[in-house]
Each structure stands twice: as C-alpha cells, then as structure tokens.
C-alpha cells in the first residue's frame, strides 16, 4: 500500500524546513523595518501575508517566527529526551529507591502548573530564548522519562540482556548500546509528539505574555499581537495561526508515515 503519509509528510516537512532555514539567512522584507505608509495592507503579490500594524511584512516575520518556534521546539525535545532517557533508563533498569525518588520528582513536575514554573525560571534569569528553552525542557522531561522507563523495565529481563550481563559487559554499554536502540520504535513517535507539544507550549507561553521578547517574534507571540486586529487585518492572525498548524502537521505526518512503514 503506497505510504501516503510518508510521502505527504516528507514533502511537507522538507518544504517547511527549507522555508525555515532560508528564514535564518534571508527574508523577502526586513522583519523589523517599519513604515507607516504600508500599515495593514491586505495580502498582495508583494506581501503574501499582507502587513501588520507597523507596516512590517507578515510573511517574512512568519518565516523567522517559524524558525524561532522550530528552534525552540527542537532544543526542548532534545533536552527533554536526553534527560528523560538518562532518568528513565536508570529508573527502569535499576528500580528501587532511585526509581522511587526520580519518579516522584517527575510527578511533581507534571503536577506543577507549567506557567508558574516557566515564570520562575524567566524571572530569575530573564526571558531570553535559552531560558525559555530551559523552562520548557524541564517540563518535558517527565513524559520522556516515563516512556523510557517502561521500555527499559520491559527489556531489562530479556535473555539477551542477561547474556550481555553475564559476559561482563559494562552497565552503561548495556544501557545505551543494547537497550536504547530497542526503545527507538517508541522513542521516535514520542519525540514527534514532544515536538508538537513544544511548539504549542511555546505558543501558549507567548500568548500569556511570558514568551519571546520583541522585536524577536515567535509564531505564538505574533498570534497574540494579531488578535487585536482580527476584524481589520485577519490575515495577520490567520498567517501566524496556520503556520503553527502547518509546522506541527508536517512533522506529525512524517512521524505517522515512519510508523506506518515500520510496522508494515
């Protein structure tokens, strides 16, 4: 059965990534230059997504905004995943008190309202991109840790692991050379879901006003600013909103495609 998801997901994600990468170097218009004459222009050939209340080209800002959201989401997933794997593997493999303590910490993080934790970190260290990534990264550790923990607990007792142990293979090698590859079929989808949630989390933080600082803009902060001009310049909100949807959709379709082709 021709794997439609892999195809559409693949095309969409390469398209989105290429737009984002070009966004880092070049954008049709400067993303910060303001000019009063061009305020609130509807979408036209020169401005594909129209202009905002300062006369800036929305499409260029969306390109950079997407880049910013993408960067944050990827970094957050990396932090969450790396720390999650370390914690999850230790808990899953060894169990006992380490498992109890680390899992309690994870429970606390999940139970803690995300916006309060994010606010604490940002008010201590200021709201630069790195702090937002740190704040969100911490929030994402428990979900990865739990997934990895159940995987390790499952694989820990399989015979080939016992065999490796008997041969005197060092624990880290067992953990990360033997068991980790087998957790990938579960870890990869968890990472894509993590990516989606990271994009949404960043957007929500910006929506509550504790995210990216102007003049830099992420898709979330643009959506927040655009809400004011919904009736007079709907293209501003729609441009930002649908870019978020496209960003998430392309990568979740890709991961769906990978999953479908894997268990075919």
């Amino acid at each position, binding site marked *: 059965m021709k794997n439609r998801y892999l195809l559409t997901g693949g095309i969409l994600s390469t398209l989105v990534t290429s737009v984002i990468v070009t966004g880092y170097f070049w954008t049709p218009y400067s993303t910060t230059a303001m000019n009063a004459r061009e305020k609130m222009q509807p979408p036209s050939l020169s401005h594909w997504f129209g202009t905002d209340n300062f006369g800036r080209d929305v499409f260029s800002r969306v390109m950079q905004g997407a880049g910013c959201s993408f960067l944050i989401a990827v970094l957050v997933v990396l932090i969450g995943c790396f720390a999650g794997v370390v914690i999850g593997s230790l808990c899953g493999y060894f169990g006992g008190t380490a498992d109890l303590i680390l899992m309690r910490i994870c429970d606390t993080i999940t139970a803690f309202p995300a916006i309060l934790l994010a606010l604490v970190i940002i008010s201590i260290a200021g709201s630069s991109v790195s702090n937002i990534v740190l704040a969100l990264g911490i929030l994402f550790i428990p979900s990865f840790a739990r997934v990895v923990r159940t995987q390790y607990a499952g694989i820990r007792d399989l015979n080939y692991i016992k065999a490796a142990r008997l041969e005197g293979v060092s624990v880290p090698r067992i953990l990360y050379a033997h068991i980790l590859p087998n957790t990938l079929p579960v870890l990869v989808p968890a990472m894509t879901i993590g990516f989606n949630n990271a994009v949404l989390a960043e*957007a*929500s933080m910006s929506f509550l006003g504790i995210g990216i600082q102007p003049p830099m803009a992420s898709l979330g902060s643009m*959506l927040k600013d655009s809400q004011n001009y919904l009736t007079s310049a709907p293209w501003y909100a729609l441009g930002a909103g649908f870019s978020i949807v496209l960003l998430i959709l392309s990568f979740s379709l890709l991961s769906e495609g990978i999953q479908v082709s894997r268990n075919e």
Partner: protein
Amino acid sequence: MRQIIKKTASLIITLFIVSLLAFLAFQIIPGDPTTKILGTSASPEKVAALRTQLGLDRPVWERYIDWLVSFLKGDFGTSYNYMRPVRSLLADKLPVTVLLTVMSFAITAAAAIPLGIVLGSIRNALADHLTMILDQIIMAVPPFFFGIIACYLFGIVLKWFLPGGYVPLSASIPGCLSYLLLPALSLALPRIAMTVRMLRGSIRHELTQNYVLTAQSRGMPLRAILIRHVMRNAMIPVVTFLAVSAAEIMTGTIIIEQVFTIPGIGRLLVSSIGNRDFPVVQAIVVILAAWIMIVNFIADLLNHWMDPRMRSE
C-alpha cells in the same frame, strides 16, 4: 489493596513537595504584593507596617508551616489582592472551571467513542485516510488559536454567541451552558482527535484476536460481539488516556479562560501570579496538582478494575 495505600501515600508526598515548591517559587519571583495594595506612592514605613501585618517579614519556613497548618484546617488565608478569604473567592470560581472541564470531557467522550467505534469496525480505506488526515490537522490546531477564530467567526461574524458575555449559572442555566459550549469544544477538539485515533487502532487490533472468531462460531452477530467482547478490551488503553486528558483539560482552561473571558480559577491563577497574591496562587496550585494526581490515580484504578490480568500482579 497494598498498592492503593502505597499510591495514596506517594500522592500526598508529591502534593507536599508541589506546595513547597510553589511557596519557594514566590520567594524568587521579584515583585512584592504590598506595592499592589499600597500603591506606588506609599511611604516606606507604611510598606513595612503592612509587611509585618501580612507576616511577610517572618522566615520562609515559619510561614510555610503556618500556611500548611491553616490550609489543612481549611483556612486558605485571605487574598492580598481582593481582601477576601481565598475560600470564598474559590467558592465562586472553582465551579466555573470544573463545569468547563466536565463539559469539555463530556464532549470529548461523547464524540470520540461513537466515532472511534464506527471507524474501528468499518473496512473502508477512503474513510480511513480521510479521518487520519482530519485527525492530524485537528491535533495540530492550538486550542487558543481555535478559540480566537471561533470568537471571531461565531461571535462577530455569525453573532451566534457573544464573546465576553459570560452568563453565570445562577443567572440562567441554558445561557451559561450555551456560552461554555464553544470554549469546551476548543479544549475538547484535539483530545477528540487523539481518542478517536487510539480507539480505532485498539478496536482494529482486538478484532483480529481469536476470541472474536470463537464468538462468531457461537453464532453471535457482529454488533453483539463488538459491544459485549471487543469494546471491553478496546476501551482499556482509551480509558487511561481519557483520564489523563481530563487532567490536561483542567490545565488547558488557564488559557481558554483568557480567550473567552470566563471567571474561572485559570484566569484567577494568571492574574494572581501577576499580582503576587501568594495565598490565592498557593491554593490554586495545590488544587490543580491534587486534581492531576487524583485523575492519574483514578486512571490506575480503572486500569486495574478493567483488566483482570493487571490485578494478579
């Protein structure tokens, strides 16, 4: 039974840690509640007087213990910002958020389960691909974006619903419920998509099991097999997922209440953090954390009850 005791114990410990963390968080965040109360041009002596009155000058540990003792006795303290006991504030606002969460959860279950059953049991390739794409798209739409667009479309353009025109339950039951319908829907949509996907996959998987063949060989019609046999098994992972999403919905209300101007504890939490209103934030943080823990706890219990294989462990 032993497991239940162990779980409740860990739940209580975690709640303690969460409340402590929230308390410490406020020592770190800059901003002093007295400025909000006394205003910007208050004289230093007045500020100091108020700080002692509110007990803000005592060491952190002492204040935390005091808060804990009074909290357990049911006295949540008085809000710095509204000069009213936190209990009465929450008494007004908690029901609103709970109603929103319950409605959103009901919509999720009511829409996702039948849809999941239908999609799980029919063998139509086109329907499969269509719903798969639809699921992906709905899951990609951030709830607050859907909220904004819904406000614009249904509110301003179609005038079916007046954004910002929240009607309290006491004033008119239909008015309140119909106002909360759209916010509940924007919270529920992504979860409906996820639940449908999971339920369809689970039913598909169960249909291939041998006990279905056995039931067929007993002359049982497909519909009876689906309801009596397949559903009981297919629902096990879905029930856990629904329980967990009940927790996510409650935290999701924080943003949705801002978009739809609903006077619930979500909005109160955001404004209280802004106003550095410790007692209110503490109370809400503990309530939210308790709700998340309890819901996960119920998910485990449901899991045990529905799946006898788990019980023997």
